[in-house]
């Protein structure tokens, strides 16, 4: 089955409207429907039929954030995904669950308002923000480490092959050599590859694309030593 995105959003919005909710916004690019009922704000995040595991996880996490902020959060899933993940977690954490198929839309789990004390909520949000900053930082460092490892691995391979070549030449200094073997040929260091390597190294140092007035500035060292 394939339901067009716009049609899907409209169907889910229409279903909730028929339950007495007032539609505030239909976001076709983000697959979100926002509604109100009395003073409560309802946010429905829709998972499309062809979504992967990552998309589903992302939608669920965002719904959890919606719930933590005092909104009534819903996830709308295609029927085929329900059989894989079940509805227990949604009931447990009071996140509403709507299931849709080609011809039907059903509310399986009602969304509820999660009441967290303000202090606790603020503390949680502070911690989350701190964790986010840490994760971002770790993520960028991990990328750099992965790049370095990949480069080191290539260098080791090239080094081994050079040693093999040296061994061959030392053993037979007077021999004329045919074209390198196919395997060796593909690993000959080309000048532009070196440049590429250098460029990558520079790029790593300038990964954040620092402006020119910051790079190689002697004041950076002097100022960073202030205590």
């Amino acid at each position, binding site marked *: 089955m394939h339901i067009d995105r716009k049609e899907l959003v409209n169907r889910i919005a229409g279903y909730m409207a028929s339950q007495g909710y007032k539609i505030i916004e239909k976001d076709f690019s983000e697959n979100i429907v926002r509604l109100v009922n009395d003073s409560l704000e309802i946010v429905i995040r829709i998972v499309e039929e062809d979504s992967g595991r990552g998309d589903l996880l992302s939608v669920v996490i965002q719904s959890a954030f919606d719930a933590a902020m005092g909104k009534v959060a819903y996830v709308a899933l295609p029927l085929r995904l329900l059989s894989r993940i079940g509805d227990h977690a949604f009931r447990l954490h009071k996140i509403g669950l709507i299931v849709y198929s080609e011809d039907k839309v059903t509310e399986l789990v009602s969304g509820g308002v999660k009441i967290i004390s303000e202090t606790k909520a603020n503390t949680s949000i502070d911690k*989350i*923000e*701190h964790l*986010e*900053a*840490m994760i*971002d*930082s770790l993520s960028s460092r991990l990328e750099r480490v992965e790049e370095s490892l990949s480069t080191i691995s290539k260098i080791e391979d090239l080094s081994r092959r050079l040693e093999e070549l040296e061994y061959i030449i030392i053993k037979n200094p007077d021999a004329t050599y045919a074209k390198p073997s196919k395997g060796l040929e593909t690993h000959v260091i080309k000048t532009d590859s070196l440049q590429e390597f250098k460029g990558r190294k520079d790029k790593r140092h300038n990964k*954040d*694309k620092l*402006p*020119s*007035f*910051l790079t*190689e*500035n*002697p*004041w*950076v*060292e*002097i*100022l*960073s030593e*202030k*205590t």
Partner: protein
Amino acid sequence: MFEEDYKRRFVFGSDYGTSDYKYGPITLGERPAVIENRGYLPERSMVSKILGVEKDIVVGKDVAYFLESGADLSSRMIYPMRDGVVAKSDPTAWRVIKELTKFSLEEFKPSGFGFKGYYIVASLSAIAPRYMYENLINIYDEISRETGLIHASTIIPQPLAVAIAHKELSCVVVESGHGNTQVAPISRAPIRDAIVALNRGGSEANAITAEVLKDSGYGDLAKEESLVRRVKENLGLLPLNLDEAINYAKRNPEHVRAIYQVPGTRIKIDLAEYSWTRFLIGEYVFDPNHEIFQSYFKRGMPRPSDTRVGDITFYGMLDMAETIIRAVERCPVELQPHLYSHIILSGGNFMWRPVSTMKGIAVDSQTKLQHMLRDKGLENVNVRLSPEPQYAVWRGCIVYGYAIPANYRWEWEKMEGWVYHTK
């Protein structure tokens, strides 16, 4: 470690110039955003209410939309800074500073999670009194509480920011902006006792430009400050030698004649036979002592006078070269040759363009100053102009914020370090 990474991503520069406010985060790259350092107090009219624009103070580009008749400008347009200083007892001026800061931060408010406020580095004139630091920090505190856009702040003197931007550990920074000129020797830190200030800046060049406009028959236009400034920037020239330049202009009037059309209007300014006065505009900034300026003083143009702000004297009539010499001679003797060979000119008031058809007649600032210093007997002098002088202070702020450790806390004795506004 994480805090350092965060700080380096979210450092924000804030250069409060008398004329322009330059601002923006490190992610802007080479250049900051720029708006005029002014605010407008709109009339609370029915029309304003109908249009839904209930604002006490308007800043930024929106000011142009709120301008009513020219007669309103003088009372409703607020320029909070004069000579690099905001008056202590002027709450409206401080409100404008706050609105400008809020406006600038909101323009660059990041979306998404993880943002807890910028590390803002502000820059003030080297002679800014302590209350300006206190008031600015209080403003940042308020903004932090109201919007969450400031996590920590610090304030540095403008000459230090310029030295940092130019990667010079020891040098003389000559910062000339709208309100005044500061000559500040730097040797890994400002040498505070050696600072010499001039009570002359771009506003003096504006004043002589206004007189030139009046003499040329454009007296009505001379009242609009922003127009006078544009005329100065487009028609003003800096002579290597004023007498020679005037003689040249009188012998070759068509070479010196220029017509300026104000963009987006029908206003055309042609100085015609007064075109030689273009050289007065630049000369007045560097040396107001030439006898030709006496007639202007007699006619009522204010003569720059010596004033005192705190323990700093602002000299009115000292020429630019003499000012630099006085500052350098207050430094250790062994440092002086190095300082003379590393003079950096910064600030919008040094943006004088040489004219290729008037080589040796109309010059740029570094040529002029080098010539003046050599005339006073100094040989190994090297003067360079900041490539983009109006951005140097902001760049220095960014480097400073990037490098200063997050755990370096503010101390009033040193006037350095971070003030934290949130936990």
